[in-house]
């Protein structure tokens, strides 16, 4: 109990340190998160980006954030509050913030807005996103090399384009090594529920998968892999601490460099609304160190990563759709519009897309 109390006190002390004093000449940069920053996943990584901005730009900026903001009227208020409190640049980090942010941006033309993963822009609203699918191609190759059964278990949240695109890219990567590679897919209908994710991982392992991939945020699935002495990939943040013997690599979001460049632009007065889709070459999508695999696999993974960083797109033909109809001709590269609205599987995916 006493230790807990001490923990509570240190926690609160840390919190109070975060409370920064007002200063008039500083640029105020603000963030709105959909989850708690304590999720050690999506919102946590965005907040790490915020902390990097504080570290890199020091005295010149002041930051603030609102966490756990639900998508709806609360989001409208969150953006309006920050705009009125003197935030000069505001980052909305969830797709569901799109319409609230568009509304508030219209009302505050002098404030710079940035929205992650959306598709609406305006004079003072830019959008940014990360090409996670690039990393997933590498994961697919590693999985095909490392899986003895030739079957991966894939835990997914919701059938939105980003997730579908991730599954497709993973499968293309895997098939480039082993044309008969299979993935079993389980939808858990949640971004974040450790218990459900652990159960899904167990179910997939029990049905013969020996590598786990996830498009959900918690470390639970990897912990199951660790327990079963099998392998898996982390997501959002480097989860090696949770699975030192199981994590092959982790597909992490590194928002820091982007946030620093945008806040710097705001400081310099050169900010313009943008529409960027950052990938491995921009440092926004990163693969954690390759571990628990032989050197040749590691070398292959590094080579592929380099190839993608050099501008090669995993969605390069020939690629057929699930039903065998051709999608991309030999050498044809998928355009971003198709990817961002992706609602079909490529050949070899053993699942029916929930409609």
């Amino acid at each position, binding site marked *: 109990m006493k*230790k*807990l109390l001490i923990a509570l006190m240190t926690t609160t002390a840390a919190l109070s340190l975060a409370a920064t004093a007002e200063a008039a000449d500083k640029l105020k940069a603000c963030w709105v998160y959909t989850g708690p920053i304590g999720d050690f996943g999506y919102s946590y990584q965005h907040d790490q980006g915020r902390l990097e901005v504080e570290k890199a730009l020091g005295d010149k900026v002041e930051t603030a954030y609102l966490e756990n903001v639900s998508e709806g009227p609360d989001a409208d208020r969150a953006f309006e509050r920050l705009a009125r409190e003197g935030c000069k640049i505001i980052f909305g980090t969830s797709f569901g913030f799109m319409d609230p942010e568009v509304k508030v941006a219209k009302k505050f033309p002098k404030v710079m807005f940035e929205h992650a993963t959306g598709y609406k822009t305006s004079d003072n609203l830019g959008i940014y996103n990360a090409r996670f699918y690039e990393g997933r191609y590498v994961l697919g190759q590693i999985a095909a090399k490392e899986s003895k059964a030739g079957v991966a278990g894939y835990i997914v949240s919701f059938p939105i384009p980003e997730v579908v695109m991730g599954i497709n890219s993973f499968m293309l990567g895997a098939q480039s090594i082993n044309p008969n590679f299979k993935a079993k897919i*389980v939808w858990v209908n949640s971004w974040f529920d450790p*218990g459900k994710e652990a159960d899904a991982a*167990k179910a997939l392992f029990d049905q013969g998968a020996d590598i786990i991939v996830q498009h959900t945020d918690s*470390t639970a699935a990897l*912990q199951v892999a660790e327990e079963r002495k099998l392998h898996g990939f982390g997501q959002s943040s480097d989860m090696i*601490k*949770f699975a030192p013997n199981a994590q092959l690599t982790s597909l992490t979001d590194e928002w820091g460099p982007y946030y620093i460049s945008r806040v710097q632009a705001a400081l310099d007065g050169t900010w313009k609304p943008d529409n960027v889709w950052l990938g491995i070459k921009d440092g926004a999508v990163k693969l954690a160190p390759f571990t628990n695999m032989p050197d040749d696999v590691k070398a292959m993974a590094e080579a592929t990563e380099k190839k993608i960083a050099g501008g090669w797109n995993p969605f390069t033909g020939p690629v057929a759709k699930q039903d065998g109809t051709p999608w991309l001709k030999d050498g044809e590269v998928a355009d971003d519009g198709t990817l961002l609205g992706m609602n079909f599987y490529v050949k070899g995916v053993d*699942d029916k897309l929930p409609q």
Partner: protein
Amino acid sequence: MDITVNILLTIATAATPLLIAAIGELVVERSGVLNLGVEGMMIMGAVGGFGASYLTGSPWIGLLAAIAMGAVFSLLFAVMTLSLATNQVATGLSLTLLGLGLSGMMGTSFVGQPGERLPNIDIPGLTSIPVIGRLLFGQDPIFYISIALTAAVMWFLFKTRTGLTLRSIGDSHTSAHALGIKVIRYRYLAVIFGGACAGLAGGHLSLVYTPQWVENMSAGRGWIALALVVFASWRPWRVLAGAYIFGAVWIGQLHAQAFGIPVPSQFLSSLPYLATVVVLVLISRNKRLTMMNTPASLGQPFVPDR
């Protein structure tokens, strides 16, 4: 064969926290008190258990801390509803609100820290017996506690004098009071027992199920436990059956998906709640069954008028 054993083990892990929390709440409700704060007590147990385990390095101390945390937190509810006769529904909901907030505050520094899992039982010679070995002798300690707890509560409620007294208080606190039974004292103990169980269930989440701390990690399991008590019509062995049915439906759904069978997950997920309503209707239709099982003074405040 191996896959069957694995599925059964997964179901057991999913069912254990539901079972423990529900057994605790069952005793509380049998005494005539409705504590809707199970979710709040559970999450407090989870953060307390993880915190103690993390700071001391011993998940066993974590286990004890989870129980203590749940019990202490439930005391707040007890003082309010029993000593101050506040409305139980409102107080229980407030308790959940407070628990979710407080646990988040306390757990800030535990985020992103791997926890140590409470080790599974391993009895040389027995655990390695094919098929039944791992099921009977190779699970986590809390699994055995949950089964023992169910048996103990069953025995206590229906075979002991004190249990009979407790049930009589739940049926009519005024007549129990007239007989000279210390209603409030019994209810205090029942509520604290319920809190300790909810805390233990939370500890199972952060020490066994997924050894880590993240905010809101109970993810609504406290509410399912509440449904379970009613589903079981306040019978311990039915709570056990219910928890395993809930767990089996959930795990079965995941397996069906992995097997390639698409399932409408929302319909399956709503089954437990619909089943609970149906069970409620069935037991209330039969007056004799109602008399036997439903604590008649459930949710009503009691103030001894001496």
